[in-house]
């Protein structure tokens, strides 16, 4: 495959499409599919035929507004329809050269206007399983550009200059990591894509893998060229069957088109990718545990150093990046590092995809430029808290992150800013809570998650999370004392400072951040035996007090 051949495929895909006056895109993300959007697509196709309309019907990946699904987008009109079911098919078909279907229309200008789509630019626009669709949107052009016109060092330099940082949670500079693996000694090297995504409430990576799998494969291939690897693994949890089946079919297509395999782009570069299924342990997202799991061993972390960059999979230098990190690569190569570095804030470049969930009007996936205020994400893009309730806190970073109150909403979203106020960027889960949430109970929920997901290898995390959970449960049932609170704070410090891996080291964060911003709720539970949100059942304890 050469760039000219790529152009030909793109041109023929486009001219194929130009035969139609309209395009009807039906979302086939997990959210919409669970509401039978596949039947919607069938009915629309039938209705079009019955009415003799000339339109192309396409299944696409996620359009972002999962709560309003099934979603249907009609182009070139740009009408977005929500909550569509098969009975609406005829109306939609009939509306094509007429006025849009009023009652189905989704008018959320503000939701989309504030977003900047880089990672999600193809999501909801192309058929994820048609490589021609991807190629028609400039797909695989970056890979061939890199192979033909750039040295591996040149690729690393461009990624470094873009300022891209890892989207898996830690925010490690991607270019620096690539450069380290490139310089590591060894004739065999590996590239791993981390698609384990285990944070409660997070579904960014799943959506990217379902909506634009070729984008991730292209990023991995470019990375492999840059660091000198010829074999890649993509680790996806088995709970993501749709992502796995789409990836499988895309791998086949990419090989068939000579975009994976031997002599990619008629060069000497060889690279192929295998899928590995995870059994759903959260800790297997940690890089050394993930590597152990790929090797067929029990998924437990090991102390670093050595880092995977020098000794990873089967002891070989290994590059491991997150799904979203890889999805950013092709556009950076195509459009240049300066373009990318021009988006975002001083030390956090580009965009971030967030999975907005909880007490928020527009549940779904959003992609925003770094530096945007939390308030804008929640109130404008997310449409605020529904049902007349009052906003209380936003949780970012999942079980490793923290809860931020109203007063912190005006900080800009960046790795450093979020960390400085006691939370983290994390991988992109964003859970909004209102006055019906009890912050002590929220802390207890996350501690329960860490307790059950702890691998059990090191003492502070294994036994410490269980102890903190017991003590938090005491407080939530009205049996807690101020001594228990002091003990919790003590345990937080030991678990944070002495645990082996990131899971234990960050497990105290939800407790620490709620103690920082909502300490009076803890005190109310302990002293007054009262839960202001009415979540914790403390009747028994309150009676004793009275």
């Amino acid at each position: 495959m050469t760039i000219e051949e790529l152009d030909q495929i793109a041109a023929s895909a486009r001219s194929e499409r130009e035969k139609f006056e309209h395009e009807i895109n039906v979302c086939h993300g997990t959210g919409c599919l669970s509401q039978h959007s596949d039947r919607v697509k069938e009915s629309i196709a039938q209705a079009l035929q019955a009415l003799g309309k000339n339109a192309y019907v396409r299944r696409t990946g996620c359009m972002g507004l999962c709560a309003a699904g099934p979603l249907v987008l009609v182009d070139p009109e740009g009408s977005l329809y929500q909550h569509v079911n098969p009975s609406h098919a005829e109306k939609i078909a009939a509306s094509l050269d007429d006025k849009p279907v009023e009652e189905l229309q989704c008018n959320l200008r503000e939701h989309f206007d504030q977003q900047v789509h880089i990672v999600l630019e193809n999501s909801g626009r192309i058929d994820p399983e048609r490589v021609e669709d991807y190629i028609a949107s400039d797909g695989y052009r970056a890979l061939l550009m890199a192979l033909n016109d750039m040295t591996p060092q040149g690729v690393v330099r461009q990624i470094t200059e873009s300022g891209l940082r890892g989207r898996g949670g830690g925010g490690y500079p991607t270019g620096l990591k690539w450069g380290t693996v490139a310089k590591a000694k060894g004739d065999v090297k590996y590239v791993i894509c981390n698609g384990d995504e285990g944070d409660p409430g997070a579904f960014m990576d799943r959506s990217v893998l379902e909506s634009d799998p070729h984008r991730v494969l292209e990023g991995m291939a470019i990375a492999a060229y840059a660091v000198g690897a010829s074999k890649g693994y993509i680790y996806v949890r088995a709970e993501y069957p749709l992502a796995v089946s789409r990836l499988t079919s895309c791998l086949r297509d990419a090989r068939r088109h000579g975009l994976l395999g031997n002599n990619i782009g008629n060069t000497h570069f060889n690279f192929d990718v295998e899928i590995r299924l995870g059994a759903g342990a959260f800790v297997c997202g940690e890089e050394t545990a993930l590597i152990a799991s790929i090797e067929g061993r029990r998924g437990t972390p090991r102390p670093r150093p050595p880092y995977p960059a020098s000794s990873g999979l089967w002891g070989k230098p290994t590059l491991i990046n997150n799904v979203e990190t890889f999805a950013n690569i092709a556009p950076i190569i195509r459009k240049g590092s300066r373009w990318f570095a021009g988006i975002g804030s001083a030390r956090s470049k580009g965009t971030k995809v967030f999975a907005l969930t909880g007490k928020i009007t527009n549940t779904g996936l959003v992609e925003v430029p770094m530096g945007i205020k939390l308030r804008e994400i929640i109130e404008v893009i997310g449409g605020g808290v529904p049902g007349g309730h009052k906003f209380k806190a936003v949780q970012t970073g999942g079980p490793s992150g923290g809860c931020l109150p109203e007063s912190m909403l005006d900080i800009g979203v960046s790795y450093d800013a979020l960390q400085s106020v006691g939370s983290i960027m994390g991988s992109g889960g964003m859970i909004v809570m209102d006055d019906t949430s009890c912050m002590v109970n929220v802390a207890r929920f996350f501690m329960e998650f860490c307790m059950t997901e702890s691998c059990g290898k090191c003492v502070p995390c294994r036994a410490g999370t269980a102890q903190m959970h017991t003590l938090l449960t005491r407080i939530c049932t009205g049996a807690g004392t101020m001594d228990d609170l002091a003990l919790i704070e003590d345990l937080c410090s030991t678990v944070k400072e002495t645990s082996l891996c990131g899971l234990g080291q960050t497990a105290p964060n939800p407790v620490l951040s709620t103690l920082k911003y909502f300490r009076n709720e803890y005190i109310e539970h302990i002293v007054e035996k009262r839960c202001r949100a009415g979540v914790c059942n403390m009747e028994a304890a309150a009676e004793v007090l009275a």
Partner: protein
Amino acid sequence: MSEVGTEVKILVIDEQEVSAHAGQTILEVARENDIHIPTLCYLEGLSNVGACRLCLVEIKGSSKLTPACVTTVQEGMEVSTNSERLTRHRRTILELLFAERNHICSVCVANGHCELQSLGQELGLTHVRLPYRNPDLPVDASHERFTADHNRCILCTRCVRVCAEIEGAHVWDVMGRGVNCTIITDLHEEWGKSTCTRCGKCVQVCPTGALFDKSKIGSEHPKYPDFLPFLNMMREAQ
């Protein structure tokens, strides 16, 4: 055991200048110089897992704590093995272990020969502030010669490692996650019905009363884990 190089490094441990081979761990060098660092999962002769976190030390220039058993020495490193902060964490870790399962020393076969008990004494642990979890755990007495009492197990995985790495039988492994972890024989068979070779190495390396010899009781059950380095030395010599 770490790969030991020929290059020599000079470093400082507790204000004492010491020399080391490149590739040696901080713990190895400290022991050579009679500097004591508490450990539980570490055992000379086995691979290092860095799991108990008792050997954490402070290194000048880093705010993070570093496990001495898995960290190799660097030229000019300044290590402190003792501080108020370290003692506080070590005590809490021991408390966590004592509260996790049922460590009732007075009725344990290892009383007086237990590494956990000794560390508690060494670090001046007078009481446990944490609620005892009192789990309901089984005792596997199916083996002809040995017993596994899960109530005393601290999940240090020495038995797992000695069986796989030295005996080559890999009978022991860890099952489950978090506080529900347990050591198992084979695929969770009874020990007596497992592929155990009855060599007894696991019993000797177990730091507590979790694995013991049925023919011994109470204070008659000292353990001799020091055979490992010699065994390794003899094997290498062959």
